[in-house]
């Protein structure tokens, strides 16, 4: 009866798990694109008119209707859209014919710009914001969580708990607004942020993003601090912690090595889950600080009802969120190999 169990978990099992996850990502992405396409192109009202914009002449509207193949059944149109995504597409804008290369998300009829191009120019800003902020919130959040689990029951823990609670309860645009007014407006410690390309001037890039990073990070950090603290406390109550204490292992090692390890997996899972909300936060941050990222562009596109841009951006953001989730799942499985056994 005392044999080995579950030995297939490491080699083949793990690769299989990653493969299954990858297929899942593809399916999810397809499904999301279908949903988004259907929702946005089966809206009430004249789609061609909406897409073209309010200032379009009837002729232009007719042209857009042709481009979108509004006479074809929906699935044909969707298939056409997919085709453009994979193979590229040609658009005729009145006189000239524009070629839209491979990952073609369509054409903005209001600005005559290709959506893919538009997104590519805005993407670095948003990625700078989100990734920089993520580094900040992970360090701040996990650090605070560990500290308050470590100082459990003391004054410092209560203070930290209070601060994180306030962080959780403050909407990102309120924090950002207050930070901007206080730091840039009143104290004049920093100039009002102005995006600078990383490749142009890394120092200025970081300086200018400092405040947006901080506003976005503070809220997420609060959530992580709470999760880290509670996961650690949960782990500290587990039997194996008792074992190490009963074997004379010091408290530093018990907390730093064993309890912290138990908080790993939940933190990874939360980080993936929060990518979606962080993207939402990024939209607000970009709008607030006037950073020319995807979020601000999306708000603009929504304002003027530029459908191809909206659809393209929602798809791209969805793509990143799904990928982030899948990556986290794999990381999670690495952190907790027992998951793969399932």
């Amino acid at each position: 009866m005392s044999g080995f169990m579950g030995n297939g978990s490491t080699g083949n099992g793990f690769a299989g798990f990653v493969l299954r996850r990858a297929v899942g990502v593809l399916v999810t992405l397809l499904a999301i694109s279908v949903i988004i396409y259907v929702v946005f192109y089966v809206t009430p009202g004249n789609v061609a008119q909406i897409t073209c914009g309010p200032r379009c002449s009837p002729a232009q509207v007719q042209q857009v209707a042709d481009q979108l193949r509004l006479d074809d059944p929906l699935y044909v149109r969707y298939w056409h859209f997919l085709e453009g995504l994979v193979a590229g597409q040609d658009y005729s804008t009145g006189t000239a014919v524009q070629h839209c290369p491979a990952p073609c998300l369509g054409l903005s009829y209001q600005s005559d710009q290709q959506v893919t191009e538009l997104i590519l120019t805005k993407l670095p800003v948003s990625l700078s914001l989100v990734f920089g902020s993520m580094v900040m919130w992970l360090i701040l959040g996990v650090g605070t969580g560990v500290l308050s689990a470590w100082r459990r029951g003391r004054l410092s823990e209560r203070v930290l708990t209070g601060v994180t609670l306030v962080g959780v309860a403050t909407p990102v645009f309120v924090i950002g607004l207050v930070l901007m007014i206080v730091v840039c407006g009143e104290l004049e410690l920093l100039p009002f942020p102005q995006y600078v390309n990383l490749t142009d001037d890394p120092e200025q890039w970081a300086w200018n993003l400092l405040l947006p990073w901080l506003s976005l990070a503070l809220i997420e950090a609060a959530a992580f601090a709470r999760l880290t603290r509670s996961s650690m406390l949960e782990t500290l109550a587990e039997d194996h912690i008792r074992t190490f204490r009963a074997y004379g292992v010091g408290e530093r090692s018990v907390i730093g090595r064993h309890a912290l390890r138990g908080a790993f997996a939940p933190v990874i899972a939360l980080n993936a889950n929060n990518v979606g909300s962080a993207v939402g936060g990024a939209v607000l941050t970009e709008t607030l600080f006037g950073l020319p990222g995807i979020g601000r562009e999306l708000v603009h596109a929504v304002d003027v009802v530029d459908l191809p841009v909206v659809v393209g951006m929602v798809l791209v953001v969805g793509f990143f969120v799904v990928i982030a989730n899948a990556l986290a799942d794999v990381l999670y499985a690495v952190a907790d190999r027992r998951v793969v056994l399932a």
Partner: protein
Amino acid sequence: MSDVLIASQAPGGTDLSVPPGASGARQFWRRLRAQRAALVAAGVVALLVLVALAAPLLTAIEGQDPTTYHPDLIDSARGGVPIGSFGGISGEHWLGVEPQTGRDLFARLVYGARVSLGVALAATVVQIVIGVVVGVAAALGTRWVDQLLSRFTDIIVAMPLMIMSLALLAIVPSSFPRPVLVAGVIGLIAWGNIAKIVRAQTLTLKGLDYVSAARLSGWGTWRIARRELLPGLAAPVITYAAILIPQNITVEAALSFLGVGMKPPTPSWGQMLTAADVWYQAAPQYLLLPAGALFVTVLALTVLGDGVRTALDPRAASRLRVGTGRRREAKVASVTAAASVTTATSAVSATSVASVTGASGASGESGESGGAAQGGAS
């Protein structure tokens, strides 16, 4: 004090011994009352709800309404700054008036509470109804139904709420009543996590012996779902709703802040913030009031949510979730729930441990108390 052997210490100093005959609800109130912070928060929330409900009455007492322009109260020569000190505070206008328009700030603030709380509550109701229906149907349906609904839920969860609602709100004609629309859009997009929690919990409950016993008694599926399963869902659903409400308030405010949520002239805190941005020096209360209102509301609701969760015994809840064997689904759900709460649990690791152990003969020492998880696993 280095050698702390942490027993299972519930936060908030609970572990009250239950008097004979105490029902779940009574126990819940006892535990909630034992937490001072939660009590204060409950008081604040009650006050806010009262203000929201009595908004027409309050403004009537003041003698103002939220939409009337008062051009006479603003100094158009100075760019529209309110006339008078402190942003035009007076006996008529308790909190002053808006720059540029001269609308009464107090009236806009209390009507804003109405919009904020109303939309958040309605959105939460939509989320819970969809989540419970989908979750229960997935857990009780055939394998095929479960697969379909679970995949669909995964996709819904993958959709970023802010982005999707931004986009959706853009394409709906503006003739549609805005508060209903915002609540509906939030509700329709963000029900995924609650569906996952409900599904996992239903599966756990379904595997419990007392549900098997009810089947052996001869009851049909519907009766069992109603009598044995649904009451067991109350605790996690209430807990999650307590997390959702402040979240929805923030989302509504954010959407309005971006200009796609509430449209003028409907007063909304988020929208006031956008407008107030540039006036912070001339009329600071125009910025501080909605910001403060938003902060206090979300904070009070969050603290109250924490209290509710503690009172419903998170440990018991997480223990119930253990052993479903569907850990990846349960993971995200439990983690999201955990994120905003003090007493989160790593239900995941516990789940894995429980199912790896499998069933074994119950132990002498712990058999009486710790059997639930084992029962679920076998």
